[in-house]
């Protein structure tokens, strides 16, 4: 008979670390999908996921079971991703002069005829990746959660541990920061 989540957690807390494996198996896809939003290299994604599970194991006695385990785990995942962003703030100051051919073409199309620059194009995906990489960790986290994942301010507050007004302030600043980066990209490309 398959054990419930609560039974597995209780067993882990009693010292049976093998009972942790079904939990890892069940929730790893969500952890990996979230980590891939913030890290590009697969080795970095794996490091984040591993870090999340090690933290979850160490802090499992802090899980009171009031909210589903998944919510608790996702909070830990988002915070670990944020720590990762803070620890890997590279390439933030580099210029946009090294855009690839398709990226430049997409941008050119957007400038001359915006309606022809499709949102599903691979070039657009690469370009948004570049822009997100140049954002500060706070801004990137807020833009990802609010604009890309379409989460509410309240949800973001719970995930990040920031207060609701703080999330709003950071969202405002993040949008401004993104626009500034886009302006820099335009300047690097055309001037």
């Amino acid at each position: 008979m398959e054990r419930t989540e609560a039974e597995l957690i209780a067993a882990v807390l009693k010292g049976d670390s093998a009972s942790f494996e079904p939990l890892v198996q069940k929730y790893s896809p969500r952890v990996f999908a979230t980590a891939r939003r913030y890290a590009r290299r697969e080795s970095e994604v794996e490091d984040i996921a591993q870090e999340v599970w090690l933290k979850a194991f160490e802090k499992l006695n802090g899980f009171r079971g009031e909210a589903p385990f998944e919510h608790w785990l996702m909070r830990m995942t988002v915070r670990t991703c944020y720590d990762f962003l803070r620890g890997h703030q590279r390439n933030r100051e580099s210029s946009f002069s090294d855009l690839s051919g398709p990226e430049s073409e997409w941008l050119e199309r957007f400038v001359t005829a915006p309606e022809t620059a499709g949102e599903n194009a691979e070039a657009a995906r690469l370009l948004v990746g570049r822009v997100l990489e140049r954002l500060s960790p706070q801004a990137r986290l807020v833009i990802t959660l609010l604009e890309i994942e379409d989460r509410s301010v309240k949800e973001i507050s719970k995930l990040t541990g920031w207060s609701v007004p703080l999330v709003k302030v950071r969202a405002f600043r993040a949008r401004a920061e993104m626009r500034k980066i886009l302006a820099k990209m335009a300047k690097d490309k055309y001037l």
Partner: protein
Amino acid sequence: MIVTRSGGAASKKIRVRMNLAELQRKLIAAARANMPGDRVPYAFEKRVTALLASRVAPKNLDLWVRGLWRAAVSCVAVALLCGAWAVFTPAVTPGSTDLSQDFENTLLASVNQGDQAP
């Protein structure tokens, strides 16, 4: 924002207007359209469990080592205190009785009494 195409001669400059808000909207939409995959590497859960097991064992060992070190430090402290006490206490004057002699007398009092009894 008004930008000018790079590399163009002055007479051929094309002035274009880039709508940054629209560009931002398009790029966000592009990011939304490309959901990251949720693929998990093969046997990832086994790796995590093995890693946890290897971390739990040294943890227990750490507790023992920490406890033993504390005990060793306490022993050294007590030894140093006793040494200091032995060194710094004034030497026994000839008129006074020796502590060890008193201790021996007390311990052997019953035997001495037995010997003195008729």
